[in-house]
């Protein structure tokens, strides 16, 4: 490794995960070791933001009482990403939601800072509350972002959560999301990331008494030497819960994409309905995709389905488009856009201003001859 990770071990109070560990087998931390060994100031994501009606800052007593609860419920404490972030003890952004709140956007922008930039977010939706939240993680330099987001969803509450990670080719993104869902609550999570040298995303959800609805849509795009790794874990601790999970990956260049999807259905979770689908596209011979479902199903009266596909752009689809006069390069982009759009269209409306498709695909995604101001493709700027 170019640099050292000893300072990270000091912060986390635990050794940096070795690739001998099953959960880190495919994930190369070289990019993390190259980060300048210092802590950087994390800009306040609420600076200059007027909180919409229905959303307020949690009191310090409330933060004190509730912080760590979702992590605990998800057995997250011993995860290295959590140990690292907790070792730094960043200021907590605590938000409470009651009633039907207006949409909110939280931007964690590491900018050109050097070093490690930590954020910690706690979001509490009261019974029956609803919110659409877009979290954006951005970087434009050689830094590592660590974010822990804890979410407590009260009975019958609804959260549409978008997580958009727009990286830099020297930057790392380490995100851990822990959600505890009460019965009758709904979580619709849509995440998309691209452009990071290394990104590790750990969404974990527990339906503490079952009977809740979880939908997860995610897309990770890697190119060059990048590595993106999603380790998701969903547990049903009561009957009648549902999960609808779709994970997509696009791997180009010599990049690596990892997906590990754990679903746990213990005996108490009868009548659970869970489905998990992983669909990956390989755009180059040198890219690698490792995808693994991890189902632990003990309850017997459940419906659980899972599937995984890794494919290339379909020659017959490309030829069909070409046979209608559409040039090969444009036809590929059209197919890729269709592939990504299935996930991206689930992002909150506020994501549109970040032009995620254009960033993924480069110019001309509208396929019109005159795309207005195409955004620079990530990783190529």
């Amino acid at each position, binding site marked *: 490794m170019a640099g050292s990770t000893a300072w990270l071990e000091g912060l986390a109070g635990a050794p940096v995960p070795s690739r001998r560990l099953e959960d880190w087998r495919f994930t190369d931390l070289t990019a993390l070791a190259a980060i300048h060994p210092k802590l950087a100031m994390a800009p306040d994501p609420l600076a200059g933001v007027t909180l919409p009606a229905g959303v307020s800052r949690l009191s310090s007593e409330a933060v004190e009482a509730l912080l760590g609860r979702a992590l605990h419920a998800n057995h997250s404490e011993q995860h290295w990403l959590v140990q690292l972030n907790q070792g730094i003890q960043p200021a907590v952004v605590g938000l409470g939601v009651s009633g039907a709140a207006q949409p909110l956007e939280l931007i964690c922008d590491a900018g050109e800072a050097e070093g490690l930039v930590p954020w910690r977010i706690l979001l509490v939706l009261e019974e029956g509350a609803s919110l659409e939240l877009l979290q954006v993680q951005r970087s434009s330099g050689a830094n590592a972002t660590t974010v822990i987001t804890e979410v407590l969803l009260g009975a019958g509450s609804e959260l549409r959560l978008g997580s958009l990670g727009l990286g830099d080719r020297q930057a790392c993104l380490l995100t851990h999301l822990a959600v505890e869902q009460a019965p009758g609550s709904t979580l619709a999570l849509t995440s998309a990331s691209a452009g990071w040298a290394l990104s590790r995303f750990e969404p974990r959800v527990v339906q503490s008494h079952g009977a809740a609805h979880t939908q997860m849509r995610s897309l990770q795009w890697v190119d060059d030497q990048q590595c993106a790794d999603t380790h998701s874990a969903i547990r049903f601790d009561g009957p009648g819960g549902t999960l609808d999970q779709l994970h997509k990956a696009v791997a180009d260049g010599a990049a690596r994409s990892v997906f590990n999807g754990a679903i746990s259905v213990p005996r108490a979770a009868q009548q659970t309905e869970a489905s998990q689908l992983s669909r990956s596209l390989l755009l180059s011979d040198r890219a690698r995709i490792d995808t693994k479902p991890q189902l632990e199903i003990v309850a017997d009266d459940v419906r659980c389905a899972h599937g995984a596909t890794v494919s290339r752009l379909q020659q017959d689809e490309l*030829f069909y*488009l070409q*046979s*209608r*006069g559409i040039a090969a390069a444009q*036809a590929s982009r*059209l197919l890729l*856009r*269709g592939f990504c*759009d299935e996930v991206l269209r689930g992002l909150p409306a506020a994501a549109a201003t970040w032009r995620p498709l254009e960033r993924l695909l480069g110019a001309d995604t509208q396929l019109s001859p005159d795309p207005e101001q195409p955004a620079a493709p990530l990783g190529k700027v």
Partner: protein
Amino acid sequence: MIRPDAPILLEIQGLHASVDEQPILNGVNLTIRAGEIHAVMGRNGSGKSTLSKVLAGHPAYTVTAGSVRYQDVNLLELEPEQRARIGLFLGFQYPVEIPGVSNLEFLRVATNARRQERGDDELDTFAFEDLVRERLNVVQMDPAFLERSVNQGFSGGEKKRNEILQMALLEPLVAILDETDSGLDIDALRIVASGVNQLAGPHTATLLITHYQRLLDLITPDFVHVMAAGRILRSGGKELALELERTGYDWVDAELARQPVEVP
């Protein structure tokens, strides 16, 4: 319409093609002039779809000998998209489903690629909507199909109508329709046939690949060809199709034995 002095649009000579080293076309000869309607018939596996895909430029097939002239260009040198832009159209036997790509946008991009080649203005979204609504009438297709992904979840008949809609938008010079009639009920067949008849004219040509006389009752061919073992074994007028309807293809094997495959 046969006019011996009409310009030649497509001239196929001694065409051999293979897939994975396996020869499939074994010396196809066929000349098509403006105004003509040709029908190619033959048993399953005789190479009809392969001929159509080789003409359209499918990358799975390698041309090992022979030539194809389209008007005054060497068709085999062109990329598939270029062939389409200069007016060659293939109606697929099995139209491909493309999830996530809107049919309307696909049709617009394709139409504009062809228009650009012809020196016409590109159509913006609004102008294109007007055009597509007008052309939908040719195939009596529900506009709801424009909003869906290309061919996704379409029934067999709907896919074939979508093919003819594309043909109506692209206004090809040479249209090759590969079993566009298969799987259609009689009403859909009438609609598709009337679409083809509306689009055929003195300056264009049509190559129909079909198994059935019932399509040829609605679209009268000037020439009928019988394909077997990757070449054209017999050619004749529309009466050849009627004869095939009576006699079937049993004579083909004896005929093949008498006409050995020419090695290029």
